[in-house]
């Protein structure tokens, strides 16, 4: 028994780009999208880890690597001390009972032609030999715990509202009592009022069953409520990892600060200029050396462009890891006081093709 449920070390995932014929003939090196680049993190038993990042940050890829929907290019993923990074075939399939995934799109992730009991009972069918009536009985038991009536066994997914469909997906993830549930943007398709219901349910379920969560989202509010620890990702690397309250209230990394300052808050407050980072998220194809955030960071120095900052822990904050060279100087400045310090950087258009999403 190890201390951690999941222990990922130097996990990397590169998606090779298709080459044109001339490129192949001229023996050019195959270019690839560096979706996840040398990420190490741990998830404890019964812990929920929030993974925040914007689109293209590689957070979904990382989640799918941990759920082994992708095979890592390099690095190891230990699950309960066992290396699962290169499992295949039957071994992989039977390991899947320990990790379940709730996908972003509650409409698309439920087969429109199946009834509730078939959808929710699918993991049972995959892992065990069970008769139809057994599956129905077990699905009927699990439905109330996600807040759906037991009588809805024979309905089709389109007969549910968005929140109801997300509950179905959650029930499917729960039915085998996994050790870890990967939640891939579970609330992004839901309205505020429904979001609160689903988040409450998520926390209640964790208390009841005691599994771990990996919550992948761009929604800071969801992470704040569900997560114990939070990891901030930017361009395939971790920028900052730490306890949720500490990171959200005293962010150290310039990117985390920018992200939190950019959140629109439903309060009428100072409408003046705020700390904003300029520029756009650059492409993940052959990223330059140095800090990934250097191109947009208002505090950039030459060292940032040449030397990659490693995730390190500060002397006075033992739980909070941050990857920034200048964190000692800028870490203490709260985001709201950074107004005016952000120099206007040339707002270069990204003429590179948009990053293909790794989900496809």
């Amino acid at each position, binding site marked *: 028994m190890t201390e951690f449920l999941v222990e990922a070390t130097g996990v990397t995932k590169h998606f090779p780009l298709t080459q044109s014929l001339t490129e192949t003939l001229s023996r050019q090196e195959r270019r690839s999208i560096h979706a996840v680049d040398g990420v190490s993190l741990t998830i404890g038993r019964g812990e929920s880890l929030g993974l925040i990042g914007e689109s293209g940050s590689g957070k979904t890829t990382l989640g799918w690597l941990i*759920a082994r*929907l992708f095979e890592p290019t390099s690095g190891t993923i230990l699950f309960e001390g066992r290396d699962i990074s290169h499992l295949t075939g039957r071994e*992989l*399939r*039977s*390991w*899947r*009972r320990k*990790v*379940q*995934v709730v*996908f*972003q*799109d509650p409409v*698309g*992730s*439920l*087969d*429109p*032609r*199946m009834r509730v009991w078939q959808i929710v009972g*699918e*993991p049972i*069918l*995959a*892992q065990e030999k069970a008769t139809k009536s057994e599956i129905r009985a077990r699905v009927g038991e699990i439905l109330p715990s996600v*807040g*759906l*009536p037991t009588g*809805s066994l*024979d*309905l089709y997914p*389109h*007969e*549910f*509202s968005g*929140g*109801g469909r997300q*509950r179905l*997906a959650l029930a*499917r993830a729960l039915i085998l009592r996994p050790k870890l549930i990967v939640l891939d943007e579970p609330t992004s398709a839901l309205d505020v009022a*429904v979001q609160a*219901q689903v988040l*409450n*349910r998520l926390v209640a379920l964790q208390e009841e069953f005691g599994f771990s969560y990996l919550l992948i989202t761009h929604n800071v509010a969801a992470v704040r409520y569900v997560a114990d620890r939070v990891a901030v990702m930017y361009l395939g690397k971790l920028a900052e990892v730490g306890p949720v309250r500490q990171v959200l209230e005293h962010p150290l990394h310039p990117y985390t600060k920018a992200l939190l300052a950019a959140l629109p808050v439903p309060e009428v407050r100072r409408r003046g200029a705020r700390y904003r980072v300029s520029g756009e998220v650059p492409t993940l194809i052959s990223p330059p050396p140095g800090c990934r955030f250097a191109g947009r960071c208002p505090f950039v120095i030459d060292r940032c462009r040449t030397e990659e900052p490693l995730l390190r822990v500060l002397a006075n904050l033992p739980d909070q890891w941050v990857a920034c060279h200048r964190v000692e100087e800028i870490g203490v400045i709260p985001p709201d006081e950074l107004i005016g310090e952000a120099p206007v950087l040339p707002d270069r258009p990204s003429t590179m093709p948009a990053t293909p999403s790794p989900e*496809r």
Partner: protein
Amino acid sequence: MAGDARATQPAGWLSRKRKWLTSQLTHLRSGLRGFLRIMRANPLTLVGFVMVVLIVSVAVLVVLLPPIGQALVGHPVSILPYGPNYYPSPCPTRIVTTGNYSYPTCTLPPSTEHLLGTDNLGRDMLSRVMAALPLDLAIGFVVTAFAALLGGSLGLVAGYWNQPRTIKGAISVAILRLTDIFLAFPSLVLALAIAATLGRGTLPTVLAILLTWWPYYVRLVRGEVLVVKHQPYVTAAKAAGLSDLRILIRHVIRNILEPVTVYYTLDVGTVLVTFSTISFIGIGVPLDVPEWGNMVEYYQTQNLMGIAPWTILAAGGAIFVTVLAFSLLGDGLRDVLDPRSRRALAQAAVPTTVAAPAALGEA
């Protein structure tokens, strides 16, 4: 043993059975409602549907009535007014005048006795057209079905196992290249060439069509599989630990069935026309077998268009009506299965009753 269990708990079994029955009935009713909605949305679909039902039942009667009659009353009974190749000898004639010539002919125009008239041998056209119906329809259905099965399974393989640089991927590429070779020829020309090589007869014609028809289904099914394969629910099934074969059966096939059915319905008419075309050119079905294509060809070579157009029109009209029926039905089905209109229907069907009690429980 099952009987014992039933005997000990009859009431429970009965109530379960009743519950099952009522649930089946509700599903039937909801299915029927969907059907009615389709019909209301596109009335031409209903026309096509009724026509197809009529045509198929006539064909079934033509085939099944004689043996049933044999069994029941001792002699064959048929809905054909006359035999397909029966002609009275000598046949009743009329005098036709073209230009300076006058000559007798057995072709009689439509009358109460012969609803579609008679041909140059005095054979009843209605009987001939009806007698040809089972063969033509069977060709349409069966050949298309075989093509769909063959092409469909190849398409399934090519679409689902298409990872590059693996053995499976190589198989998939091989299938696709073979398909491309077949698709490079115009289908009718290829069918004619094969039919001509194999010689005259029903079976060679069927083979010719089958050989030219499957590649379209490879393309169609592969495209659909590629779409379904990337749906999040397939990923979800993978994440649940389902094996590839199970995913294929449970999710992929189930979701591509709809577009394939539509295509199939539309294709039945096309195959029928192609079959008739091959016969019309004179390399298909032998003349003694009643078939619409070779009827048109035969009457045309007998120069009946001028003096007895009803002969050609009856056979041609039969082709027209049958193809039209399947086209209307297929078009209507396609409209209904179109994702946009389907989404509208699904949206309209969203009840809030299911989510509401659950959400209330949350408060």
